[in-house]
């Protein structure tokens, strides 16, 4: 007598228990604290905050711990939590010109007001495994640093602007659309594109940006400026009639300066790509600015070369790793019913084919 597979409920419960045990690993090794993750895996925390669209280092660290270091899973935990939060209002636009910069570099000018600040970067480290880190508890050399440059630090692109050498963005007061509250509608405004890219998967955005450098939608980008630091977040309080600072966030901002020889509608001048991402996330911010610039081909009257990075729908609909991983992994769910219908169809087509073929075979 055949008995159908049962016990889904028990299996799920047991799987959860196993998962918890695996997450903890060898209990002879001390458990990681959320604070340790927050302080010592800060770049992972930053990525989870950026792609999770929620600035909260403690929650991001908790998500990383719970996800056993699977950052996409951690992003997913943060996103699912984020959607349940009530909205009290929208902040004023942050002023990155007033950023307290811990790092600020320009590839286009050797020096500029505000100076170049190398800051904490992997850039000139030799990538040699440091075995001293394997021995814990060592003393750290005290770095010689100045305090972050208190803002305002003018944007490099504003110097180009004085000569009219770079496009100027027209200031706008209209409320930008909110990707997380309205369904995506194509074609999308730049504000919506930037939202999608800043929370998009770092690997996907990186690869798209790289493809533009290799000629698939080339944009001739220079890093005009990359700055990292904290900015104040202010909220207008209508009852008070002025804005109140409610906290600060760390941001990475990248502006590229792109060669542009002019088009039917625009004079020759430099154009911009823009990246703005939570935390110290400079790979993502640079990649974002390249992809942003590549997507602007239509408004600048450039040719559509058919490059993936120029294809707004392709980029926006596939950048989100929570969507992508969910849909990818759903194919491991039962598909008995669809598969059965395919089985029958193939059998039927084979039978009909065989019925027509015997003469030919003989």
């Amino acid at each position, binding site marked *: 007598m055949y008995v159908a597979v049962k016990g889904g409920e028990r299996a799920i419960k047991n799987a959860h228990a196993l998962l918890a045990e695996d997450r903890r690993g060898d209990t002879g090794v001390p458990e990681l604290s959320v604070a340790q993750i927050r302080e010592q895996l800060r770049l992972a925390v930053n990525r989870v905050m950026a792609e999770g669209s929620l600035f909260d280092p403690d929650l991001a660290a908790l998500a990383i711990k719970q996800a056993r270091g699977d950052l996409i899973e951690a992003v997913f935990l943060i996103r699912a939590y984020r959607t349940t939060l009530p909205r009290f209002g929208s902040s004023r636009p942050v002023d990155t010109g007033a950023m307290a910069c811990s790092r600020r570099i320009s590839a286009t000018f050797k020096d500029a007001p505000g100076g170049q600040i190398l800051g904490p970067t992997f850039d000139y480290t030799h990538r040699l495994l440091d075995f001293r880190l394997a021995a814990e508890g060592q003393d750290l050399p005290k770095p010689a640093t100045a305090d972050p440059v208190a803002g305002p630090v003018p944007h490099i692109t504003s110097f180009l602007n004085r000569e009219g050498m770079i496009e100027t963005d027209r200031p706008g007061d209209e409320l930008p659309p909110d990707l997380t509250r309205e369904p995506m509608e194509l074609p999308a405004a730049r504000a919506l594109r930037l939202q999608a890219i800043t929370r998009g998967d770092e690997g996907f955005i990186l690869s798209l940006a790289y493809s533009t450098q290799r000629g698939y939608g080339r944009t001739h980008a220079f890093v005009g400026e990359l700055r990292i630091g904290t900015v104040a977040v202010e909220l207008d309080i209508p009852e008070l009639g002025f804005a109140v600072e409610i906290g600060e966030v760390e941001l990475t901002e990248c502006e590229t300066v792109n060669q542009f020889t002019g088009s039917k509608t625009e004079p020759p001048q430099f154009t911009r790509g823009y990246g703005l991402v939570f935390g110290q996330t400079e790979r993502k911010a640079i990649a974002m600015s390249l992809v942003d610039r590549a997507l602007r081909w239509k408004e600048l009257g450039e040719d559509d070369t058919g490059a993936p990075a120029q294809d707004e729908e392709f980029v926006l609909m596939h950048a989100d790793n929570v969507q992508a991983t969910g849909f990818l992994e759903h194919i491991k769910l039962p598909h008995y*019913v669809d598969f059965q219908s395919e089985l029958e169809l193939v059998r039927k087509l084979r039978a009909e084919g065989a019925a027509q073929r015997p003469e030919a075979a003989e």
Partner: protein
Amino acid sequence: MTEQAYNFAYLDEQTKRMIRRAILKGVAVPGYQVPFASREMPMPYGWGTGGVQVTAACLTPGDRLKVIDQGADDTTNAVSIRSFFSRTAGVAVTEATAEATLIQTRHRIPEHPLTEDQILVYQVPIPEPLRFLEPREPETRKMHSLEEYGLMHVKLYEDIARHGAIATSYDYPVKVEGRYVMDPSPIPKFDNPKLSGCPALQLFGAGREQRIYALPPYTRVDSLDFDDHPFDPSKADHDCDLCGAGDSYLDEVIIDDAGGRMFVCSDTDFCRSRRAAGHAGRLGTPAGEAA
């Protein structure tokens, strides 16, 4: 017991209002896909987030919820979604189709005929029936607005030319009230006739793709076909080996290494109630007599 940290049926009230407005417009324009601002749910995209959001927006405390996946109440994802709603909405749950007031489903329509007092909510992965012919959303949107469905007929006709039959066995496209071509979700085409003239309200939710659509009760739904190749809702040419039903959709189960197989109802509730009523198939015994 409900989880106090979350709102009734998990979603916040503003989100539910947004989804409810989309559902009403979907009902008013049968078969048209209404965009909605799908939220991130605590389960992965592709695992029923659209259906879950529609269900959450429709549930009332008096509902009795049934969740099936592949026709079965005990598949893991069905178990998981059912427990999500018993925790967050505190609603009663059931496995009996006839007792349910709201049924969320993935890939099947129950065999037991639905009634006017029921809502059937489908989980939909790709709501756009034209998507595999034209990947671009603005293009397919235009095609729907112009009622320009020639591409779909060409595809189906090419199947006939190549294979002698339409090579689509599930997710088989339909036309709603003679107007919108609609994706019925990946149900086997065997289930397509049940879409039409159904006394229950049918709602479709696609979370990742941010679309909701609907078939009001008694809506006319036609599976696309040709005069010389009429639609054929075929199924495996067997009876259920457990309950003996000859008119239900069957799962094929491999039972040994020698290629032995059996066929059983994919609708577990249907099969169980038939056996409870004394029916038995080739390998089954009526439920009362089982050890």
